[in-house]
């Protein structure tokens, strides 16, 4: 479903701030794979998602989504294949527009937009149904401006928007990191429900190792723009946080002294 073939990306090349963010990253995902991604700050986790999404083009290597080479495809065109949820709840929704308008925008992802109605009566009924999966009561508030929602509600809505039109790949970039633990758990539950329902191929970055172990069928650990540990299936299920810490020290030769990698 997704093939990253030896991709490289260097930011600020030729300056003192030069940073090789991706160093020949290889990653192949089978359809229905739900992979969690962990790694320290600057490991290249978000950079990987941005490379897939086309926020900028990679320096070298190729990106293939469902058999289609998208390496040189603009961000808004690639969006047809992708659902994205960002870390910052403000990023994924249009605050000055209503819940139903945001959903209608998402429902038209990957389609040419013309002079047809931006939202139809039939869609409104559908959205009322789809919103129920979030279990937040948003189905009663279709015409509320998204700016009035809490961070957790906005994040859950963004998740629904990302999956309203079944994406080839769902990209979750620490989408629960900015939420309080209770809300984060709720959003993560909703994520699990949606991913299961549609059997979505999913890449989820998290800084919570327990979540990384508990969710998905595959786990990868990144360090300095490369994958240093890749585990799936039964082996992944048997993992413990201390295994991951040991693995990190072994592979990277350094301590996992990073307060962003929470152990709880």
């Amino acid at each position, binding site marked *: 479903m997704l093939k990253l073939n030896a991709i490289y990306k260097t930011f600020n090349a030729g300056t003192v701030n030069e940073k090789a963010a991706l160093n020949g990253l290889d990653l192949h995902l089978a359809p229905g794979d739900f992979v969690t991604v962990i790694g320290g700050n600057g490991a290249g986790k978000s950079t990987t998602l941005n490379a897939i999404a086309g926020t900028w083009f990679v320096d070298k290597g190729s990106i293939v989504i469902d058999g289609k080479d998208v390496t040189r495809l603009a961000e*808004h*065109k690639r969006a047809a294949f992708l659902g994205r949820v960002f870390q910052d709840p403000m*990023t*994924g929704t249009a605050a000055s527009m209503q819940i139903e308008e945001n959903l209608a*925008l998402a429902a038209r992802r*990957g389609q040419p*937009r013309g*002079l047809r*109605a931006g939202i139809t009566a039939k869609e409104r009924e559908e959205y009322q149904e789809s919103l129920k999966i979030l279990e937040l009561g948003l189905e009663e508030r279709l015409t509320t401006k998204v700016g009035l929602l809490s961070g957790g509600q906005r994040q859950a809505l963004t998740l629904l928007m990302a999956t309203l039109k079944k994406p080839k790949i769902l990209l979750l970039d620490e989408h629960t990191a900015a939420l309080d633990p209770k809300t984060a758990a709720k959003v993560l539950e909703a994520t699990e429900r949606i991913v299961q329902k549609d059997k979505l191929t999913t890449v989820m970055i998290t800084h919570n190792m327990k979540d990384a172990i508990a969710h998905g069928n595959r786990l990868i650990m990144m360090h300095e723009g490369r994958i240093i540990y890749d585990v799936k299936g039964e082996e992944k299920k048997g993992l413990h946080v201390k295994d991951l810490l040991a693995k990190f020290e072994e592979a990277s030769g350094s301590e996992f002294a990073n307060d962003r990698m929470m152990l709880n």
Partner: protein
Amino acid sequence: MNIMNLLTALPGAVAQGLIWGIMAIGVYITYKLLDLADLTVDGTMCTGGAVCIMMMLKGYPVWLALAVAFLVGMLAGFVTGFLHTFMGIPAILAGILSQLGLYSINLRIMDNKANQAINVDKYDLLVSLRYIKNVPIYQNTILIVAVIIVVLIAILYWFFGTEIGSAIRATGSNPNMSRAQGINTDVTKILGLMLSNGIVAFASGLYAQYQGFADINAGRGAIVIGLAAVIISQVLFGKIQSNFAFKLAFVAFGGVIYYLVLQVVLWLGLNANDLKLVSAAIVAVFLAIPHLNAKRKGGAGNA
């Protein structure tokens, strides 16, 4: 200070205010919906009038002259949008470049004259300062412009409810999210700028007819008047929960209030040459208010 002088001047002020209200609706599209400050309008507020008057002088009917004015305005908006998106020039600078370029183009359109007059008795004008009083009601400029505004708002209300209109609004609200939803934000920005400048040029065509001449300086400071109308509408009606159509109507009404206030301060004895300074100061104060309020509450303002 004769109160009668003021009262006789008021209908004219209302008519001018309504025409500038149309222009302000154009400004609203870029400034509020797209979140871009577009200075092209200082040029297009002259271009539309120049096109309209010159075409009518050559014998074309008024509806065609206004339609072409609208299209030429859209073209100017396209240039600004192109400079901004594909050339990566900041929106304000892109607008200033277009505006400066338009000065020469406007002179060309007007046969290299700074002023082109049109005789209301010889040509079939849609609006004129002569059509305010002592004309049949269906010829009354205030009524005609009001009807035009209602039609314009109806069209915009429909358009911004369509898929492409929603995409333009989303672009102004959150460009990152828009791209993630597959919207080409370069295209939506260009479309918004085109629509905005088309409307401004259309208003310019009406304004030139109203005054009876096209003038090279007609657009000077137009953006400030447009912003003033938008801001007045927000200060007066911002608290009212209203749908998009009413918001646009309030903007047009903001133009009327601006001209009424103008008329009053002139009547109170303000030198007409000082008007632009006063307008600039008033708009500056209102633009600063959200920022200062935020500061007072302890947060960082982002106005």
